[in-house]
């Protein structure tokens, strides 16, 4: 704790020197452990991620609610939401396709809005609610969109499907599923290499026309 305190008590007006910072980072295992411990320092970090906190920690605290379950985690700032979901929370339903925001396989909802989790730093989701494909079903009861994808054969290999379904749900919620043309336009961020597009459109139209709660 001594080292940590020292880190936080760095001169108000100066960042710790680069060398000092590197030395400090070597003690990252200790810091990580500390980061998970409630305390004044961690509270400060959560409320105000300022220069001193960033300089002291290799890993930083982040609070995320995933599929209704709160998680208090410690991560490197370069971890994307996609990698956090898959590698740390073991929610592997969300898929890594291109990893550059071009295919939509990684689509999840953040505070109800669909986004590409591969281009979202997990740190930026602090305090927000994330819904992944695992969060759609209610126990054994599939979400209407999942049912419709099965019924209409909205996939072949299935790799893009979690992203397609998350996008499809958002497409209806946003009010952009009023015609085939509109659905195709507003589903354009999700690529399906197998070419299941007509069946995906059918699935979305059925859910939309069925008027079910999505």
């Amino acid at each position, binding site marked *: 704790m001594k080292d940590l305190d020292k880190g936080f008590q760095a001169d108000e007006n100066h960042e710790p020197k680069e060398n000092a910072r590197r030395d400090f980072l070597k003690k990252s295992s200790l810091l990580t452990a500390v980061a998970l411990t409630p305390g004044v320092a961690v509270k400060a970090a959560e409320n105000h991620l*300022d220069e001193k906190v960033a300089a002291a920690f290799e890993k930083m605290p982040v609070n995320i609610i995933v599929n209704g379950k709160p998680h208090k985690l410690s991560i490197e700032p*370069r971890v994307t939401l996609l990698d956090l979901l898959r590698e740390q929370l073991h929610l592997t339903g969300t898929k890594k396709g291109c990893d550059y*925001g071009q295919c*939509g396989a990684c689509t999840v909802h953040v505070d109800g809005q669909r986004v*590409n989790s591969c*281009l979202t730093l997990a740190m930026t989701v602090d305090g927000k609610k994330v819904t992944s494909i695992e969060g759609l079903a209610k126990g054994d009861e599939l979400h209407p969109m999942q049912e419709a994808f099965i019924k209409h054969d909205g996939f072949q290999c299935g790799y893009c499907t979690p992203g397609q379904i998350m996008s499809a749900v958002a497409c209806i919620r946003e009010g952009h599923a009023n015609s085939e043309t509109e659905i195709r336009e507003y589903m354009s961020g999700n690529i399906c290499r197998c070419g299941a597009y007509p069946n995906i459109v059918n699935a979305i139209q059925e859910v939309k026309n069925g008027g079910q709660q999505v």
Partner: protein
Amino acid sequence: MKQFQYIRPATQQSVLDAITKPGARILAGGSNLIDLMKRGVTSPDKLVDIQKLPLKGISKSTGNVSSISIGALELNSAVAENKLIKEEFPLLSMALNAGASPQLRNMATVGGNMMQRTRCTYFYDTAMPCNKREPNSGCGAMEGINRMHAIFGTSEKCIAVHPSDMCVALAALDASVEVKSKKGTRYIPFTEFHRLPGETPQLDNTLTTGELITRVIIPHNNFAKNSYYLKVRDRASYAFALISVAVGLDIQGGNIKEARLAMGGVAHKPWRLKAAEQFLKGKPATVANFEQAASLAMQGAKSFGHNDFKLKMAPASIIEALSNAAKLS
């Protein structure tokens, strides 16, 4: 991705302090910056996440000239769907909806959209020379695969294009950009925000170190009824523009009182077609006049081989967009 420090200051003052330091970059939506960092095109030491700043909101102000102000952190999707924007500046809404995908529009902010880098494949490929990425390393595109590249305002150093659709509309709409720094506030006309490559293609725009985009202001105009954004691309949706044209016409009694025209996919910045605008002023809205305006707009165009087709596609797109805006087609 290389390691970096991440900070999320709660006040504008802390952000302005943080961004003056070398190696610091502002993080807004991240949809372009994170992509570039993953590919090693850019490697900031520090990301200054500005999401805690109160830079959202779309509001109308009525003064001598009424205008609409859009906060720099407003999402592209929110601006595109906003009632005020749809009513007053449908051109901006159309341009935003022509850009990226619904997911990316839910991430990308107005300020971030302005700051996005070119999609030139040589800029993205760190194994290739690129004067924009690595000053004075050479240009891979000049004699390479350059079908996406510029036909206006190019230099011997760079023929990349600015990829934004939103910016093309904002250039046509005579918007201005509010920028804050420790020195105070300044306003940059949108058409002067982005720059041509010249000898320093590494500089995309006229922002200086330590400046933060806070909002975009669009003055009232009479183009709402006759606006159109045409985007020509390799697939029907979710692709960058080969050519795009933003048109705003103020037509009264069949005559064009004022015209605004800008093109995307043709230059290092949104390309305003001032000569064509001037020509159309006071003339009847006819295809014959649109054809003349398009030929005026094309003066000085220069292609590089694979993008020769743009010399035909650009004027055709101008005529098509004008006809759509004037509701002739």
